Structures are given as structure tokens and as C-alpha cells.
């Protein structure tokens, strides 16, 4: 307990030193284009009481959530099929291994071309980013479950349905959560990138807009806010991961 208090105090001290350094750099005027932390705090306070920040936050988070959910369903289904059936693995493996290396941002121009400048484009790009960690983790977990429990299923004469509900589903949950953790973070990055580049909505758009209007304190306020949001999303997923049972097959490589 004492060591945790110590860690929190020291950590906050570190943050304080960082902000102090920022304040000194801004006050000295040696770096042009950096507003003082006090101005950013004031701007953030102003934005926090305005509708703009909250509606942008709601938009970005909603899109991220929808995209993560779609990626979870797609990733689990395709990953399970590929991992459980060697034939399907050979049939789909080549497509998966050529598509997954396309940097998701590369898809932005194509998606804009086909789907236009709306929320659908944001969701599509984010799904494409978030699906791979889930799919690959679930595929690896299903494959190791299949090989590991092959004899058991034969001896116990489990029906295909029992095999699914008793072995694969409980066994693949940890892998799914690990994949989702990486996937959700990627989805958030991509949603913000699409908003900065093209779709005029959400937090990414607000950063770009404030920057283009040279409202520096406001822009930095949004950047800090997005950083805090990233921490919150990460913490929530960590908590969810800890709440789940830690048994099952966790693949060694959890990319």
C-alpha cells in the first residue's frame, strides 16, 4: 500500500516537472507556436463547458465503439473458422496474409472514393484496422485448442456443438480480449486520422480546425483531451481484461 502511494506521488511529480518544463519553454519564447500550459488549461476549461467538445467526443467514441464491435464479430468468426478447420486455413490464409499488411490509413482515399465523406467511411477504415489483431489472435488460439484437445474430444465423443461451447468458446475468450485491446486502440487512432484528413466531424476534425484557424490554446486543449481519452480507453480495457477468467489458450505472439 505504501509503495503504491509512493508510486502515485512520484508519478504526479514527474507530470508536474513535465508541465513546468513546458511552461518554461513557452515563457522563454524560444519555441514559437507553443502556447503556455495555463492558456491551454483555460481553453480546455472553456471547451469542457461547451457543447462542441462533448458532441465531438461522443461522435468519435461512438464510431470507435461501433467499429470495434463489428471488428470483434468479424474477427472472432473468421478467426475461429480459419483456426478450427485446416482446409479453411489454407484457403483463406493467403488472402488474410496479403490484406493484413496494408496500412489501414492507405484505405482512407479508397473508402472516401467509394463511400463519401460520412460516418460510414470512418467505421469502415477503423474496422479494417481493428479486425486483424482479433482475427489473428482468435485463429492462433483456435488452432492450438484444436490440436491440444483433439484426443479429448474423440475420447469424450463430444458433438460438434459441445466441442464449440465447451472447448472453443471458453478457450478463445482471453485471446479475443487481448486482440480487442490492441484493436480498440487502433480503431481510435484511425477514427481520429480519418476525421483529421477528411470527415468533418469528431475530435480529429476539431484539432485540425483549431490548428488551421491558428487557435493554438484550443488546439492543444483538444490534443491533451484526446490523450486523456486514450488513457481512459486503455484503462477500461485493462480492467475488463482483468475481470475475465485468465484460463484458456493465449497465443505466444499477441500482435
Amino acid at each position, binding site marked *: 500500500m505504501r509503495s503504491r502511494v509512493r508510486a502515485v506521488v512520484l*508519478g504526479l511529480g514527474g507530470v508536474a516537472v513535465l508541465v513546468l518544463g513546458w511552461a518554461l519553454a513557452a515563457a522563454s519564447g524560444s519555441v514559437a507556436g507553443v502556447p503556455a500550459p495555463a492558456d491551454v488549461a483555460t481553453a480546455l476549461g472553456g471547451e469542457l463547458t461547451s457543447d462542441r467538445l462533448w458532441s465531438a467526443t461522443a461522435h468519435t467514441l461512438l464510431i470507435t465503439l461501433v467499429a470495434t464491435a463489428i471488428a470483434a464479430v468479424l474477427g472472432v468468426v473468421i478467426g475461429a473458422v480459419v483456426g478450427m478447420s485446416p482446409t479453411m486455413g489454407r484457403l483463406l490464409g493467403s488472402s488474410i496474409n496479403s490484406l493484413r499488411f496494408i496500412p489501414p490509413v492507405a484505405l482512407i482515399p479508397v473508402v472516401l472514393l*467509394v463511400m463519401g465523406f460520412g460516418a460510414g467511411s470512418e467505421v469502415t477504415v477503423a474496422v479494417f484496422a481493428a479486425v486483424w489483431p482479433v482475427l489473428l489472435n482468435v485463429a492462433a488460439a483456435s488452432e492450438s485448442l484444436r490440436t491440444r484437445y483433439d484426443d479429448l474430444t474423440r475420447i469424450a465423443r463430444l458433438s460438434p456443438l459441445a466441442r464449440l461451447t465447451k472447448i472453443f468458446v471458453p478457450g478463445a475468450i482471453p485471446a479475443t480480449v487481448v486482440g480487442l485491446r490492441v484493436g480498440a486502440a487502433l480503431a481510435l*487512432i484511425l477514427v481520429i*486520422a480519418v476525421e483529421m484528413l477528411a470527415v468533418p466531424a469528431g475530435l480529429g476534425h476539431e484539432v485540425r480546425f483549431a490548428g488551421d484557424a491558428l487557435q493554438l490554446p484550443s488546439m492543444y486543449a483538444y490534443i491533451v483531451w484526446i490523450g486523456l481519452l*486514450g488513457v481512459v480507453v486503455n484503462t477500461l480495457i485493462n480492467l475488463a481484461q482483468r475481470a475475465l477468467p485468465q484460463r484458456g489458450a493465449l497465443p505466444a505472439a499477441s500482435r
Partner: protein
Amino acid sequence: MTRVLRIGQALAVPLALLGLWELAAQAGWVNPVFVPAPSRIAEAGYDMLQDGGLLEATGETTVRALLGLLLAIVVAVPVGMLIGASRIADEVTRPSLEFFRAMPTVTVIPALMILVGIGHTLALVAIMFAAVWPILLGAVHGVRGIERTLVDVARVHRLGPVAATLKVRLPAALPGIVTGVRISLAIALVVALVAEMMTGNGGLGSLVIEARSRYRSADVFGIVVVMGVVGLLLNSGMVWLEKRAGLARIG
């Protein structure tokens, strides 16, 4: 025979999908202005390769991503190992580092556009800023995870601080560092492309935005394929390096 069967299985689905796509575009089930046929995309890609612009842009993006990653490694490994060597330093910096790692780093690009302008340095600085945190935390974790006995071995052999760091700490922390570099490699390519798309300053990102604004759909799809190939090659290079590093550790 089995080998032929395997190759056939691997090619079946992609070929079927491409065939269906070609058919859909030729028959007009999708609007070929927005979704061109694969044959048109291949043609456009060939033309772009012929006039050299595509190769140049590919090189530019790849060099940017790798150079930014290299700069990040050069900064992150020593700093991370220093932080990891002291418990207090680790505790003081932990929340700040976690903040930067969890933050979607593409958001700093508009700020950097004002700080460093939209020249060549922008992409480099942005890539470095985004790529540095996973490696830094990987190095910290790597050093923190070193077993006491290893440190004792270094002491027994009377290694000086420099020798102890190079011969004991660095190899022991290497797996953590490599994990960080692998994550950062993907980030580096993404940030390079976003920076290029936002500033229009060279590379595949600018090329694709330009093609899109002129509604040259086949060019857009062709450039995206090239981006995928770059991603694949960078990843394969990383896997190769990891294997070599693994062998070097055993030998």
C-alpha cells in the same frame, strides 16, 4: 502433388475474388468510375511505374518511415535503459510515459505543422514522436525484468558500468526492445502516410491524395496496393531481423 494442391488452395480464393471484382466492374454492377476493374488498376499501376513517379514516392515514404524509426530507436533505447535501471526514475516517469503511449499520436501532426512547418522534417519528427514510446517502454520493461542473478554475475566478473550495460543489460533487455520496435514499425508507416496526406509533401501519401482529388480511381487503388506491398516488405524485414537476433542470442 500435395504441394501443387496447397498452392492451388492458397490461390483459389484470391483469384476467385479478383475474378468476381473484374466481372462486377465490367458488367457495371458497381460504378467503374469509383471501383475500377483489377485489370484497369494493374494497367494504371504499370503506367505509374513506367514514368518513375510511383517508385520515387515509394522510396520516399519507406526512407522516411525507416529513418524516423531509427531516430526513435537511437533516442528510446538509451533513455529507456537509464530509466529502467532506477526504480525511482521508473516511478517518476511511468504515468507520463503511459500517457504518451496511450495517446493517439496522429493528433500531434497539426501541432507539429505549426511548430516545424510542412517541410521534410515534419514527417520525420512526427514519426519519431509516435514511434519512440513503445520502444522506450519496451526498454524500461526489459531492464526492470532482468534477474538479480544476472546483475550479480556482472558484479562477480567485476565488469565496469559500461561493460555491464553492454554485455549484460542490453542483451537481457533486447526482447522487450524488439517487441517495442515491432509495434513502432507499423506505427511509423501509418504516421508517415498520414503526415504525407495532410501536407502533400511527397511520398505515397501525397500521391494518393492527388490521384483521389482528380478522381483517378485506378491510380488510387494501384497506390494502395503498393502501400500494402511496402507494409508487407517492412514486416518481413522485421521478422528476418528478429530471427537473426534470436540465433545470435543462442550462439
